[in-house]
C-alpha cells in the first residue's frame, strides 16, 4: 500500500467517537496536499464503520488499523502499530491532532523512527524538499519556524483550531484494513477504565455570561473582587488552570483543555494571559472582553474588546458601573 510522498493523518477516536481535532488535522492535510495524496488512518478494535466514514472524505485512502490490543489505548501498542503502518505507507509527512493522547505517544513514535516530532504546530508550509512548521513558544508570546528538510517521514502534531473543520472536503476513497502484529507482552502499562471525578455540580457550558479569572489576580484574597463583578453581571464565575491548581476556586470552575469548553455570549477574561490551553476552552465565546496589564498577552489576539491596565482598579470600577445601569 505504498503511496510515496503522501501525507498520513492519524485520526483519534475513543470508544467509537471521533476526537473533533482529528477532522481539523485532516482539513489541514487536504489544504497542504496540493497533489500530495492524503491517507487517513483510524486505530482501534472494530473500527470499520469509522474507517468507512473516513472514506467519505476527499482523500486517497482510508485505513482501519484494527487489533484487539488497540481496544484500550496504551502508548506501547499504539506506537508499535503506527510504526508498522508508517513503514507500510511510507509517507513524507505524518500529521496528528495535538491531543493529550497524541502527546502521550507521538514523541515515542517519532523517536522510534529516529525522527523528530514538531509538536503543537499552528501552520505548515511545504518548502523545498521538506516543510516549515510554525509553532508558538513562550506560551503564545512568540512564534517560531522549524524547518524539517530531506527525506521523510516528518512528524508534526497540529494545534486545536489551526485548521477549520468546515473546510473539510467530501469525496469517495477506498477503505482498507491494516492488521498490525502486536503482542500483549509488549504492553507494559496496565490500564484501568477512564473515569470522571464526580458529577459536575457546576455546568459552565450553558452560561450566557462568564467572568473568568487568571494568574493576574495574584492571591486567594482577591478572588472576591472578581466574584463581585460576576454577581453584578449575573454571570458564572470561572477560572484558568493555575487558579484551580492553587485551590483558590474549585476544579469544576476551570475553563480550558483540561476543564470545561464554554461558549457564552460574553466571556470576561480577567488577568488571564490566554495560553492556548485556556483558549481551547473559550474561543467559542461570541464576544471576548480581556482585562490585562500586558498589552502583548496572547488573550488580546482573540479579544473583541481589550482593556489594558491594572485589573485591581478596572474590576471594582466596572462592578460599580454595572450596578448603576441595572
Amino acid at each position: 500500500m505504498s503511496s510515496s510522498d503522501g501525507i498520513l493523518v492519524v485520526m483519534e477516536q475513543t470508544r467509537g467517537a471521533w476526537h473533533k481535532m482529528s477532522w481539523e488535522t485532516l482539513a489541514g492535510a487536504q489544504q497542504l496536499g496540493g497533489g500530495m495524496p492524503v491517507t487517513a488512518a483510524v486505530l482501534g478494535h472494530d473500527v470499520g464503520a469509522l474507517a468507512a466514514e473516513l472514506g467519505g472524505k476527499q482523500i486517497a485512502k482510508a485505513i482501519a488499523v484494527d487489533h484487539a490490543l488497540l481496544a484500550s489505548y496504551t502508548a506501547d501498542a499504539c506506537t508499535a502499530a503506527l510504526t508498522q503502518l508508517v513503514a507500510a505507507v511510507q509517507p513524507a509527512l505524518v500529521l496528528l491532532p495535538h491531543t493529550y493522547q497524541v502527546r502521550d505517544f507521538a514523541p515515542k513514535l517519532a523517536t522510534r523512527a529516529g525522527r523528530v516530532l514538531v509538536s503543537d504546530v499552528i501552520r505548515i508550509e511545504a518548502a523545498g524538499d521538506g516543510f516549515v512548521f510554525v509553532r508558538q513558544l513562550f506560551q503564545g508570546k512568540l512564534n517560531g519556524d522549524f524547518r524539517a528538510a530531506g527525506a521523510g517521514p516528518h512528524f508534526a502534531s497540529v494545534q486545536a483550531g489551526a485548521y477549520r473543520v468546515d473546510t473539510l472536503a467530501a469525496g469517495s476513497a477506498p477503505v482498507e484494513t491494516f492488521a498490525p502484529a502486536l503482542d500483549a507482552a509488549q504492553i507494559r502499562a496496565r490500564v484501568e477504565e477512564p473515569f470522571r471525578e464526580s458529577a459536575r455540580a457546576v455546568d459552565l457550558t450553558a452560561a450566557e455570561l462568564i467572568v473568568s479569572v487568571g494568574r493576574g489576580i495574584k492571591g486567594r484574597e482577591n478572588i472576591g473582587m472578581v466574584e463581585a463583578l460576576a454577581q453584578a453581571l449575573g454571570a458564572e464565575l470561572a477560572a484558568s488552570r493555575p487558579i484551580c491548581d492553587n485551590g483558590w476556586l474549585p476544579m469544576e470552575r476551570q475553563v480550558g483543555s483540561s476543564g470545561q469548553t464554554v461558549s457564552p455570549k460574553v466571556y470576561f477574561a480577567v488577568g488571564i494571559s490566554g495560553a492556548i490551553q485556556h483558549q481551547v476552552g473559550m474561543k467559542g465565546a461570541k464576544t471576548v472582553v480581556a482585562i490585562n496589564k500586558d498589552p502583548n498577552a496572547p488573550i488580546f489576539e482573540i479579544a473583541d474588546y481589550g482593556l489594558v491596565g491594572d485589573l485591581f482598579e478596572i474590576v471594582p470600577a466596572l462592578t460599580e458601573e454595572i450596578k448603576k445601569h441595572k
Partner: protein
Amino acid sequence: MKVIVAIKQVPSRDSRLRVDGSGRWIDPTDLTAEINEPDAYALEEALQWKEKHGGEVVVLCAGPAGATQTIRDALAKGADRALHIEEENLTAYDSLRLAELLAAAIRAEQPDLVLTGLQSDDLGYGQTGVILAELLGMPHGTIIMQTEKTAAGIRVKRELEDGWFQFVELPLPALLTIQSGINKLRYSTLMGIKKAKSKEIKALTPAALGVTPGGAAPLEKLYAPQRGKQSRLIEGDARKQAAELVEILKHEVRAI
C-alpha cells in the same frame, strides 16, 4: 529508590520578551529566571517519594551557567545532589538531541524513577519526557496528577481531556511527566539553604556525553506573532474604561 528529576530554568512568567540579534532566541538582558513551573511540581513529587520510601533525589538540569541558581534552590528544598549539563545555547538542539543529552546523563545513574514537568514554559515542546522514556527503554505516564507505590511498580493517575482521568500501573523503572497542581510546593528553609551549599553539583558537558548540537528540525527563526484579530482597545483611566465598556455591553453586545 533513586529518583532523578529533570528540571529546567526559564524566563519568569511576566517577562517582556525581545528577540535577540540572531533572530533565533530571546535577548536575556534584564530577564529574571525561575524554575519551569511543572518541573517545580515534579521536584516536589520526587521529594515526597524520598520521604515516603527512602532513597535519593538527584536533580538533572541542562542549561547555562546561570542555571546554577535554580539548581541550588532545588538542593535547598531537599534534593541530595545535582547533575548540571553545562550548555549556553540549548536552542541549538532539537527536541530529540536535547533528550539524548539528558538520557546520556540519566543512563549512568540507573534510577528507579525519572520525573519531569509535562512541558516547558519557554519552548513548550511537551515531549522531552516521552522521548527520554523511549531512549531509556522505560515505560512512561504523561500528565500525572497522583502517584503511589505498588507491589508491581507504580500506580499513577493520568489526566485526560475534558475532566476525565485514568489510573495506570507501570513497572519500574519508569518515567513520569508531572502536571502542575499535583501537590503543594514547599518553600526552602534557612537550614535547607545552608545545607545546599555543601551539596554536590556535578558538571557535565555535551561533548563528554557524546551529543552534538543540531538535529533534524531545529528552531530556525523566532518572531512576534501577527495579530489575527484586532481587538478594540478601550483606553483611559479605570473609571473611563469601565463606563465605556458598560455602554458597549448595553448597546452593541446587548448583554446587560
